[in-house]
């Protein structure tokens, strides 16, 4: 059969082919438009925040730290705070205009501070206020591959001034056109012919939204045509309100490193550190002005251009009668007030993010974290974190000055936790803490040296009928066969100290006395205490265990010490507080769990010995008053050949562990005292923990004993020390030489009081 190709049939076929082609293109564009508008646009990365800070009457706070936090939150000091984000600190009074966060409304408050706590809070009317809350600091996010970061806004969150400004500047005809404005196109067309190049865009808001869907900014006729089709399709599928909201959430605002900041919600956070609802007209004008050239008008990089552009936008607002002349002048006179980006980087605190990711992985799929817009509130205390980072950096510099360039590769890790709640407040995984890389706080498994000793001594003190703080230990020469080899431990000072009370053997960190104690106690009872302290691995059954061959990561070690610092109450450490969905509903909380693993009395005895580390042991140097007010205690640790330098110490409500050493495990010139303790001291000096109250333990008696023989003594006797005992385990014999200086009278009186106390106060069973 012959097909006759007439002109008309060719025309029909060509027309059909073109129609099919056009239909295919339109269908393709349509699927892209709907995909983006209903999919990718609404994928929001999870945001990670620091802890919020509640200020309440009686809350313990360090004034300097509070001011540092305000600085991190980009609050600026003003003589008369009158706008959100301003404060004045004078004469122990903080006048602050809060930005507002969740249920905390924005407003002016006076916070009165005394030495270590908040004494009173009043609102603008001078009426007392119980609690005010500072917003958290955004410390990062979990970004999808395209690295688009946004905060989705819903209509109630979009301020009217933003809508007015967008429409005035970008598309005055928005509610009248069908996606394409012929008026705008013809205006741009003539302007471009005049300039003999494409100099002006005639895009409507719908077209701009369509343009973003094609991920390219080149201005060709083909692309413009596709944009126009897409714009018409968007208008066909969606209402004007939906289109405007999508535009508000999708528009590209700025590039921050690898992260692309999209939408006005994130733009307000990125440049002003607050919600879009808190922005004033000049700030909104700046953000809207930036759309024309996000890089050219970036207020951080090109403040001059940005200000000119903002003022131009403000003029448009005046012209459109959105603001009056008086307001125009006020706004134009204002400088750009963008916040410092330094505390808003997504690469801040990498070691902490590692912990957050580890905890998240147990409950969330990676895709949920990258797309569901979850808000992750963590326990990180930004001031503690900054202080811990600066302490490890500063100490390394000091050590290099002292010991020379051989320490230039020195590495380290440190963790600070809240003792009672187990909240992780700061983590450092390297001596270059801001760099991503090997996180030693969780991944460096190292011999803990004498940090093991408190575990051994606690095993003894937990058997309080047989052991107390003045039980005499033998620190004379020891030699035994272990693993077919002769094992002969030595003390750090290479001396033997003979008969010593148990507490002294700990704060002087005598190796041989400790080894003998461990051997006497037996591996099983030591293992049982290790398990109670949350150490999951089995102990090696070699006597070198008792003086520090045991290996742990800093994270594991600080978990074990949390139970000690918290009086025997084990609490799993946690970096996350709670996770909310974009609507603010709680998705998951990481609650405070505790389990009493050891009675408080033996732990109290151990903590007394650890306090002596500060008073007269390897960490001496603080005033007695300071040590008492903090209820401080600690332990230094040095492994064989000084390959590892450790220090663990609690002060106030904070427990801090520090490790220093080389990654390749070569010896350092450092001990626990000369290395890790220095980091601890530098950190504690900055954060200066507020004092805490001592526990009430009715079953503990304080008795004067002798530092050398551990027997009864008196306050007036030489070398005496007041030592706690579990009631009924006190020493009873007073050597004749101390009969004179020790007074029984006082002791008897206190016993009667104790007995009376016991009758009236029922303690724990």
């Amino acid at each position, binding site marked *: 059969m012959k097909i006759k190709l007439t002109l008309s049939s060719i025309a029909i076929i060509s027309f059909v082919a073109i129609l099919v082609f056009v239909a295919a293109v339109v269908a393709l564009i349509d699927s892209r438009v709907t995909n983006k508008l209903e999919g990718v646009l609404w994928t929001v990365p999870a945001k990670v925040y620091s802890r919020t800070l509640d200020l309440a009457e009686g809350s313990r706070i360090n004034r300097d730290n509070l001011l540092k936090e305000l600085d991190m939150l980009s609050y600026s000091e003003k003589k008369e705070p009158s706008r959100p984000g301003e404060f004045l600190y004078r004469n122990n009074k903080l006048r602050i205009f809060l930005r507002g966060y969740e249920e905390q409304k924005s407003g002016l408050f006076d916070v009165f501070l005394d030495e270590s706590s908040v004494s009173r809070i009043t609102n603008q009317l001078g009426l007392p206020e119980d609690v005010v809350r500072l917003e958290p600091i955004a410390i990062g996010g979990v970004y999808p591959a395209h690295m688009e970061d946004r905060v989705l806004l819903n209509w109630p969150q979009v301020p009217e001034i933003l809508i007015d400004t967008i429409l005035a500047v970008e598309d005055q005809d928005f509610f009248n056109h069908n996606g394409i404005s012929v008026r705008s196109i013809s205006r741009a067309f003539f302007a471009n012919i005049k300039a003999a190049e494409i100099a002006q865009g005639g895009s409507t808001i719908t077209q701009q939204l369509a343009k973003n869907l094609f991920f390219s900014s080149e201005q060709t006729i083909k692309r413009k045509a596709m944009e126009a089709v897409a714009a018409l399709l968007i208008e066909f599928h969606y209402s004007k309100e939906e289109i405007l909201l999508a535009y508000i959430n999708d528009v590209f605002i700025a590039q921050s490193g690898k992260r692309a900041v999209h939408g006005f919600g994130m733009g307000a956070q990125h440049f002003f550190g607050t919600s879009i609802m808190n922005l004033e007209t000049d700030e909104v004008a700046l953000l809207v002005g930036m759309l024309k050239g996000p890089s050219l008008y970036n207020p951080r990089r090109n403040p001059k251009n940005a200000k000119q552009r903002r003022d131009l936008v403000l003029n448009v607002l005046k012209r459109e009668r959105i603001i009056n002349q008086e307001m125009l002048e006020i706004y134009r006179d204002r400088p750009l007030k963008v916040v410092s980006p330094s505390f808003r980087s997504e690469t801040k605190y990498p070691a902490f993010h590692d912990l957050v990711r580890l905890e998240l992985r147990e409950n969330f799929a990676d895709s949920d974290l990258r797309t569901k817009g979850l808000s992750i509130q963590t326990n990180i205390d930004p001031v503690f974190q900054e202080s811990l980072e600066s302490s490890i950096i500063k100490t390394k510099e000091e050590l290099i000055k002292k010991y020379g360039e051989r320490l230039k590769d020195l590495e380290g890790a440190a963790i600070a936790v809240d003792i009672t*709640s187990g909240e992780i407040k700061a983590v450092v995984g390297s001596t270059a803490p801001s760099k991503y890389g090997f996180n030693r706080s969780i991944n460096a498994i190292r011999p803990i040296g004498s940090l093991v000793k408190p575990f051994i001594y606690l095993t003894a003190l937990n058997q309080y009928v047989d052991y107390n703080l003045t039980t005499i230990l033998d620190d004379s020469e020891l030699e035994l066969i272990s693993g077919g080899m002769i094992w002969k431990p030595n003390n750090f000072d290479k001396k033997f100290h003979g008969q010593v009370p148990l507490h002294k053997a700990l704060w002087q960190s005598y190796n041989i006395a400790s080894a003998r104690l461990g051997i006497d106690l037996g591996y099983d009872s030591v293992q049982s205490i290790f398990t109670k302290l949350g150490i999951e691995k089995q102990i090696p059954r070699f006597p070198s265990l008792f003086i520090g061959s045991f290996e742990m990561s800093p994270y594991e070690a600080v978990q074990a010490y949390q139970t000690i610092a918290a009086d025997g109450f084990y609490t799993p450490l946690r970096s996350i507080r709670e996770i909310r969905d974009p609507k603010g509903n709680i998705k998951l*909380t990481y609650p*405070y769990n505790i389990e*009493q693993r050891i009675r408080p009395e033996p732990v109290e005895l151990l903590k007394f010995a650890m306090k002596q580390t500060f008073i007269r042991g390897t960490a001496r140097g603080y005033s007695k008053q300071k040590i008492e007010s903090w209820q401080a205690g600690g332990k230094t640790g040095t492994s064989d050949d000084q390959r590892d330098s450790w220090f663990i110490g609690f002060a106030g409500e904070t427990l801090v562990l520090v490790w220093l050493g080389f990654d390749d495990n070569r010896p350092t010139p450092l001990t626990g005292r000369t290395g890790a303790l220095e980091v601890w001291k530098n950190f504690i000096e900055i954060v200066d923990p507020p004092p805490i109250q001592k526990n*009430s333990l009715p079953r503990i008696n304080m008795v004067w004993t002798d530092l050398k023989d551990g027997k009864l003594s008196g306050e007036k006797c030489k070398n005496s020390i007041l030592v706690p005992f579990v009631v009924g385990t006190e020493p009873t014999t007073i050597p004749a030489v101390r009969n004179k200086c020790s007074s029984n009278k006082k002791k008897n009186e206190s016993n009667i009081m104790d007995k009376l106390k016991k009758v009236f106060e029922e303690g724990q*069973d």
Partner: protein
Amino acid sequence: MILVRFTIVAVLIATLISCASNQNKDFVSSKEISVNEFSSSVGKLITNLNFLEDEILKINAKNPSVQRIVAGSDKYIKEGKLVQANSELERALRISKQESAVYLRLSLLRFNQGLVEESKSFASRGLLIRDVSSWERLLLNVFLKFQL
């Protein structure tokens, strides 16, 4: 002279004693609870969980700011919103760790969540706080008596 001094001192002492004894009498008469009534209250604490909850929610925190947060938590406890109640109690704890009112509620909350052992641990932790009143001590001890 000595006699005068003696008389003045004697009169003063007599006045003081009478005042003191009067006060004592008033105090006892207004607050007196019979032994039977007291022991039945204690019995009810262990057998009637609603009574125990009511008594715990009557305990106020010493710090007014903490009390405000605790009151918010109480509202959640009554509504059965235990997760929110817990968040508020942890918030209170961050302000002060010396409030038995908070530990009592944490014990109650964990008990209501079926976490009996943890409720005991919170009670034991509360007992370490200084200045816990005898009644608070008793309430905390109630949790230590519960068996799984």
